[in-house]
């Protein structure tokens, strides 16, 4: 469904991605592991059209999407949950959700259904629907960021370090929501530092080092072979 072939990306003069290739099948959860600064977040931004690759191909459902405006990709079925959450701080929780809901072809019934669904999973968002996004706690903001992405009814979610800086109890909730999205056949490309969580929820895992994918295996293989994890991630 999503295929990256030899993707190169620059930030100014620094070469960040040196030919990244990976793929995600429909409904699959794919982990993307690696140390800080190896290009994981840049990979997600490149897919979402926020950074333009200088070479290589990004294909979504068979169509070249490199250079397509992000808002078109959002309507085509890609959603991005950034590392720093990027909640619209001055918008209420409800208005944050509406940024994804107010799109062409939405019916009132479908809106209701989507809202009921996220409120069922994240009851705290229902409680705080009229509160400004910036007043939520870190964990609540992460839930809002994921819920907001779900409003787009995406085929794939690009999830960037959702458990970063969260309390262990919140990490458990993130794990639940990933499992739930998986059951709904939403594909997920998960960038994480939390190795046990990633191995636990993913079908397959790519390991990046210095702008390249160095290793690729099923999560089950990696769970059995800790030497690889140790070699690339030092844990």
């Amino acid at each position, binding site marked *: 469904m999503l295929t990256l072939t030899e993707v190169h990306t620059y930030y100014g003069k620094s070469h960040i991605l040196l030919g990244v290739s990976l793929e995600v099948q429909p409904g699959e959860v794919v982990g993307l592991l690696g140390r800080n600064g190896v290009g994981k977040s840049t990979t997600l931004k490149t897919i979402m059209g*926020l950074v333009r690759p200088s070479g290589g191909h990004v294909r979504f459902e068979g169509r070249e999407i490199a250079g397509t405006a*992000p*808002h078109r990709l959002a309507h085509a079925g890609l959603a991005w949950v*950034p590392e720093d959450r990027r909640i*619209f701080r001055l*918008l209420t929780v409800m208005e944050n959700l509406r940024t994804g809901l107010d799109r062409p072809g939405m019916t009132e019934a479908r809106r209701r259904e989507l809202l009921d669904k996220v409120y069922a999973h994240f009851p705290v968002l229902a409680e705080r629907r009229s509160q400004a996004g*910036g007043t939520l706690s870190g964990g609540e903001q992460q839930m809002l960021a994921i819920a907001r992405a779900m409003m787009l009814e995406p085929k794939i979610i690009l999830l960037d370090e959702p458990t970063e800086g969260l309390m262990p109890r919140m990490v458990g909730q993130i794990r639940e929501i990933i499992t739930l999205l998986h059951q709904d056949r939403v594909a997920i490309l998960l960038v994480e530092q939390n190795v046990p969580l990633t191995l636990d929820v993913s079908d397959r895992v790519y390991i990046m080092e210095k702008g390249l994918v160095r290793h690729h295996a099923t999560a089950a293989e990696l769970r059995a072979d800790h030497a690889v994890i140790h070699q690339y991630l030092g844990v």
Partner: protein
Amino acid sequence: MSIPLDQILIQTVNGLVNGMILALVASGLTLIFGIMDVVNFAHGDLVMLGGFTGAVTIAATGNFWLALLVAVLVIAVFGAALQATTLRPLLGRDPLTTILATFGISLVLQKYALWQWGPSARRIQEPLTGQFQLFYLQYPWYRVLTAVLSAAIIGGFWLFLRHGKYGIWIRATMQDRIMASAMGIPVPWVHTGVFAIGAGMAAASGVLFGPLGGVTQNMGLDFTLRAFIVVVVGGMGNLGGSIFAAILISLLEAYASLVVSPAQAVIVSFVVLILTLLFRPTGLFVPTPK
């Protein structure tokens, strides 16, 4: 030296009236800056074009209200075209490029107006000629009407921002352009739309100001400068701050003209600007966090 109370009250009314028209110009300017980080140095020329469009429409139809509507719509469409053709390609570039671009647009618009309508001032006939007794003065009702209309336009826009899908799109884009586009909001069109709204508000000020000061091809620079001061004092991109700053500066100028000549009273706005930049460089009011 003592100043009679009635003079102070008259200057308060004057300050409020001038402040509301200035607030209408400054709202558009601050909004455009807030959403695309562009300081529109052609903003005053949109006021001027609005004034001329209004004057031409009145000459043809004799109807002030129709002229106001036509000027707002024509200049809004013109603003949208201007943004899409000249500013959209420059988005995200060095601020200097957009400053040069809007400055260039300003010159072109002025020369066009000079060529099209000539160097002399046009006065727009006010729709309301009555006056009322304000102490020793016959105060025109029309001046009060401009303040009320300016406030109504700003208030209407505020309601539009607070409620409904497009208001959310504009506020989301102001806060985080990248995240807004990732959520499917067509950011380039939001920019164009906001520029059109700002241009329409400028055109409305031009028509409302027409009966008071006349419309000339070189009136734009003064409006740009005054609105720019207001926007800096109120906090770049802060709508509420700009409105307060517009009223504050106009009131201070009005009071100053009690003791010095009106031409010298203009200095007050520069003093406020310099003091603001020295002590509160992000504006008197806490600016909208982005």
